[in-house]
């Protein structure tokens, strides 16, 4: 279904407002409500934003602005040729095709999962990779090393032994280097967590801090330093089996995990975010998990619609 002009116009108005850098909390809340009101809204916003990533990685930054604008405003000598000859299907197909070349669609070789999706891959060296929901990784294997660039989300990798060619997982926060082992990497906005299941890995943060992590240990680090090294609780990889296992963790962490398995907005009220809980929950049925949480904690789950659920204190 093709979203109509009104929706596109509304979305563009919102984008222009959000990008103005001058947005009140009320406006932001109104935008969230608009976005949650219809799945098409979210879809349009995402596609609209696709062009921005193109500019973010653009080679045009170093070009003098006058030169850039002069070039873009150059008249088209043969524009008449094309007008009217492009069928609708043609434009649709080509936007997809050309998109790949300019990098606003997935990079070549990128492995990724969507909301609520887990996938297992066998890499070309025989290593077994599992991606959690909403994760993106780009493998870059060469003769020197086997590199996985984890762009977002979480992975578990069982590395095929090859002492001659180290296996490296990289996030913006640092590099984890192994020879043959099993480990889990979770990339969040501000830090990366490494959980060692077998053997050991050497971590070098982006700033050069080093730390060896042994089997059964879990290290949290950011680009500057290692933040904490602790005994792993052993349940970090439960997601591979579709379960969420927590022991004495805050509700906010559980909700964060569920967000990767749900479309739409899952709002958590700050007054209940710190409630601690333990338990075993099904990831693939997040509705049920929310019901289970509601039964075991002093919270109320309100279903405004399937795309907008809020979790608040029970009165």
């Amino acid at each position, binding site marked *: 279904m093709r979203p109509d002009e009104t929706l*596109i*116009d509304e*979305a*563009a*108005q919102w*984008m*222009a*407002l959000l*990008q*103005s*850098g*001058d947005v009140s909390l009320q406006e932001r809340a109104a935008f969230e409500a608009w976005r949650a009101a219809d799945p098409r809204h979210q879809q*349009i916003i995402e*596609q*609209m934003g696709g*062009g*921005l990533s*193109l*500019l*973010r990685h*653009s*080679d*045009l*930054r*170093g*070009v*003098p*602005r*006058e*030169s*850039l*604008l*002069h*070039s*873009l*405003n*150059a*008249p*088209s*000598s*043969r524009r008449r*040729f*094309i007008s009217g*000859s*492009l*069928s609708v*299907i*043609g*434009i*649709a*197909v*080509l*936007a*997809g*095709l*050309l*998109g*790949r070349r*300019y990098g*606003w669609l997935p990079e070549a070789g990128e492995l990724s999962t969507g909301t609520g999706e887990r996938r297992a891959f066998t890499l070309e060296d025989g290593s077994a990779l599992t991606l959690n929901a909403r994760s993106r990784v780009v493998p870059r294997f060469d003769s020197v090393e086997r590199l996985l660039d984890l762009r977002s989300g979480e992975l578990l990798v069982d590395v095929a032994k090859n002492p001659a060619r180290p296996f490296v997982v990289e996030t913006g926060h640092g590099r984890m280097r192994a020879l043959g082992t099993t480990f889990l990497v979770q990339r969040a906005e501000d830090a990366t967590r490494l959980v060692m299941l077998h053997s050991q890995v050497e971590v070098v943060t982006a700033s050069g801090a080093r730390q060896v992590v042994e089997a059964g240990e879990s290290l949290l680090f950011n680009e500057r330093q290692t933040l904490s090294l602790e005994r792993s609780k052993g349940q970090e990889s439960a997601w591979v089996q579709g379960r969420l296992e927590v022991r004495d963790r805050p509700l906010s962490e559980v909700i964060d995990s569920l967000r990767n398995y749900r479309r739409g907005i899952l709002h958590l009220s700050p007054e209940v975010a710190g409630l601690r809980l333990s338990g075993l929950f099904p990831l693939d049925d997040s509705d049920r998990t929310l019901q289970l949480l509601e039964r075991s904690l002093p919270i109320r789950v309100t279903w405004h619609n399937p795309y907008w659920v809020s979790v608040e204190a029970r009165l």
Partner: protein
Amino acid sequence: MGSHNPHYQVIGQMFQKDYRWLCAAVSRTLGCPHSAQDIASETFLRVLALPDPLAIREPRALLTTIARRLVYEGWRRQDLERAYLQSLALAPEPVHPSPEERALVIEALLAVDRLLNGLSAKAKAAFLYHQLDGLTYSEIGEHLGVSTSRVQQYMVEAFKRCYQAMQA
């Protein structure tokens, strides 16, 4: 992917049936059989990259569309390149980008041109000042000699245009 891949079979059959036809069609447009062969080959490469070639119902319509787009892209690339080189020549400070830098800039120009094609010069400027340089709407307004709310309107137009360009 081996030759048993059904996608390759479908496109292989399409290639055998339609390659010469496409070369002739493109050649009529360009008046140059050599570039026509390049365009036709590139067209088939693009078809190979399609996510689901089995779904193609009108192969010749698709081939024509892609080929025309490639021809157009080539022409537009020349326009942009000419304008870019001209602007460098006119620049107060002489700039001499390497051939690699030049090629990258022209590809990027082509991509941005596709994204913003059809917008007014001021709307393009507003959008790029904001996205590339991080200027605020009021700073852009001063620069372009228009009000802040007019800048916001330019941004609305630009986002609509982006959506159309991204529509796949």
